[in-house]
């Protein structure tokens, strides 16, 4: 049987590509961080210039690493919670091919100076097309799998997985304004509204529900306890959808857009605490009294800590959507700190949790080295905590100084130490990514076979 027809081959391709992109993406992050410490380090190397490599960093980690790795987990988990098999492995592999080709072409084009210049939606049109085709293929695959299931109950994880994929099939082309292939944009201030609708929903309607779906699968199994409440899961699903779709404009609180839109975005940002609370209450109550089980299993450790990052992210997020808080935190490194704990802390940790959890089931081999998973866990965690602390502090310094009347140029020297610490904090994360990739590849070929 050719590889692309084999059971769980699509899941495997997505997981391994995610592990590869984690290495690529974190190196792009390293190159960006070096610029902020030593701006002449890559002097006149066009493709390593900050503005280009920074966009390649966000594209690689957000889509290439986190999204792909979460989809890989979903490919494995979806048929299992439905008591059926995946509708089509070849279609899943084709989606992986299109998706990774999209990210690769998008990144290479960015480094070569082809960009649409809209944050998180920088990829040029051909890359967008490949990614949308991938999501349409995923939608067909997931929906048909659901329809063909035997199990009467549709478990919460399946809701979140299917939702994430079909919503993104809509949000991605709309947010990227794909009916204008040359610019990928609307005109004027409207374009900012389109962009941040996309920019926030790619987090809220794609990686968040995928990560939540994986958590809903893993938590009861690791805790060996029934889910605390199926109903809370469903409330969380609908409230996530209802509130998250409205909050993009909180990126534009001081921009010239209608006040009602800003108000809606702030109110819904706070309302977001509701779906987040349903998830965390549900997971933590399911695990109550059994947390020790999470500490002996390295995959579960990633999950537990991912849920804590989720809590921190989603308290911080609503608070700095307030105009009075944004007076200080907007436009500076505070927000960069927030996006790192959201993407790497919450969804990235859960993507890694999902990968290590399902990999033995896919390959029939134990993880090559649990010790290396632990090492990766600590490296990424320490690096990320460093990031969060350093960037939040730097952001407050910038924000307060500007509010005090200091020019941007005057504040740059004050950030020197923080930019150095940020660079240093990134190194363990890169080391973690490399160790993770090594561990995944070794598992595929050298992992100890599991007796069935």
């Amino acid at each position, binding site marked *: 049987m050719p590889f692309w027809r084999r059971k769980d081959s699509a899941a495997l391709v997505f997981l391994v590509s995610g592990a590869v992109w984690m290495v690529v993406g974190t190196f792009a992050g390293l190159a960006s961080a070096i610029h902020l410490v030593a701006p002449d380090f890559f002097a006149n190397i066009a493709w390593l210039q900050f503005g280009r490599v920074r966009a390649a960093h966000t594209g690689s980690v957000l889509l290439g690493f986190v999204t792909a790795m979460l989809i890989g987990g979903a490919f494995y988990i979806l048929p299992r919670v439905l008591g059926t098999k995946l509708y089509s492995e070849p279609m899943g592999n084709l989606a992986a091919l299109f998706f990774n080709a999209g990210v690769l072409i998008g990144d290479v084009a960015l480094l070569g100076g082809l960009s649409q210049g809209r*944050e998180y939606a920088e990829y040029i049109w051909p890359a967008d097309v490949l990614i949308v085709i991938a999501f349409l293929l995923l939608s067909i695959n997931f929906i048909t799998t659901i329809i063909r299931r035997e199990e009467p109950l549709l478990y919460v994880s399946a809701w979140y997985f299917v939702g994430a994929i079909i919503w993104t099939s809509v949000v991605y082309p709309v947010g990227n304004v794909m009916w204008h292939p040359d610019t990928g944009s609307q005109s004027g201030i409207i374009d900012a509204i389109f962009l941040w609708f996309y920019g926030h929903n790619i987090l809220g309607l794609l990686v968040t529900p995928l990560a939540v779906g994986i958590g809903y699968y893993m938590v009861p199994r690791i805790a060996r306890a029934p889910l605390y409440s199926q109903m809370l899961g469903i409330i969380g699903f609908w409230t996530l959808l209802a509130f998250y779709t409205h909050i993009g404009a909180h990126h534009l609180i001081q921009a010239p857009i209608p006040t009602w839109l800003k108000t809606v975005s702030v109110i819904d940002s706070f309302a977001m605490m509701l779906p987040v609370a349903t998830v965390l209450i549900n997971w933590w109550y399911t695990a109550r009294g059994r947390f020790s089980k999470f500490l002996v299993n390295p995959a579960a450790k990633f999950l537990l800590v991912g849920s804590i990052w989720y809590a921190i992210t989603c308290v911080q997020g609503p608070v700095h959507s307030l105009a009075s808080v944004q007076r200080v935190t907007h436009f500076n490194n505070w927000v960069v700190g927030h996006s790192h704990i959201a993407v790497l802390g919450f969804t990235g940790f859960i993507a890694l949790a999902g990968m290590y959890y399902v990999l033995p089931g896919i390959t029939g081999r134990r993880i090559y080295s649990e010790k290396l998973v632990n090492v990766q866990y600590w490296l990424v965690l320490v690096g990320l905590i460093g990031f969060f602390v350093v960037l939040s502090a730097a952001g407050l310094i910038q924000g307060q100084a500007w509010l005090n009347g200091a020019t941007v140029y005057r504040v740059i020297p004050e950030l020197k130490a923080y930019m150095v610490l940020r660079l240093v904090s990134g190194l363990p994360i890169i080391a973690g990514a490399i160790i993770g990739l090594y561990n995944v590849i070794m598992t595929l070929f050298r992992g100890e076979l599991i007796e069935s």
Partner: protein
Amino acid sequence: MRKSDSIIIIGSLMVVFAATLAVVYWPVFTIPNRPSDLWRPLTDLEERGRRLYIANGCTNCHSQYIRPQDWGIGAERISQAGDYYNQRPHLLGSERTGPDLAQEGGEHSDDWHIAHFINPRFTSPRSLMPRFAYEGMDNIKALVAYVQSLGGDDADARMEIQRRFHKEAVAAYERGPDENVKWLHSRVPKTWRAMPSESPATEASVARGEKIYQDFCIGCHGPVGDGNGPAAEHLYPPPLNFTILRRHLVDGKYIGGILYYQIMNGITGTAMPYFKKHLESAKIWDVGNYIMVNFINWRDDQLPTEGIPASYEGKEAAPVSEQPQPGPTEPGRGGAR
């Protein structure tokens, strides 16, 4: 298809569509799509520069919108929706690693920008911006044209002043170094010329001035103040050589007031920018003192004065005359209004 399946698939997609309609398409139909008072279309060269700006990801560090709370960094005009009329894509940006550029047009001279694009450290020693020499001079000129257009009509008004004084400055420079200094002095308001440094040139003041000189001035005026910093080869007229000022002291003794005024307001039309938004008053006096002591080898801060010294000056204060000279206006008459 079971009922629960159709609820998630069709039902949730309907929610997504409803939300898109409410928070994306409703604004599309209700936000007036009109240019603002200062909007103008871009020229072909400026448009080319804009594409290079996008290609190089400049938006990742430079915002293009001035917020209401930006009073300290030049919110002479808070950005309006119409400023972005017809722009595809918008370039509002989300981070300020570098300064906001919404009103950058005409803030600096063209040659300042060229030196700055070739190596930002030439003009701004603490800058974190990458070098853009790899783009080649043709593209750099397009980038400069675009940056000089930011701010629309307001930018054009600033560029008008740049061009007017550029002509004067070039003509003066070409008459020779002494004539150049005479012209520079003549472009300082009279009240500022016969004025000493109003801050004692103490060791501490000169040390503070040195730090500021290194952060702001050294790239053009050079480490020894002779106007041969690394930016100089790209600038015309070139930066001033401070050492010749010794033979151009006003009334044979004053230079502090002129230094202060020119650091504060810049010499628009040349690459010399204004610094009053970067530096508070005391810092401008300090850097003036540093230049005076190190490059002109002259101090005017101890000349007798009528002014009441600042309290901290103590032993360093300039001698104060017992009987102040009567002012130009008589009490009670008032000035011309």
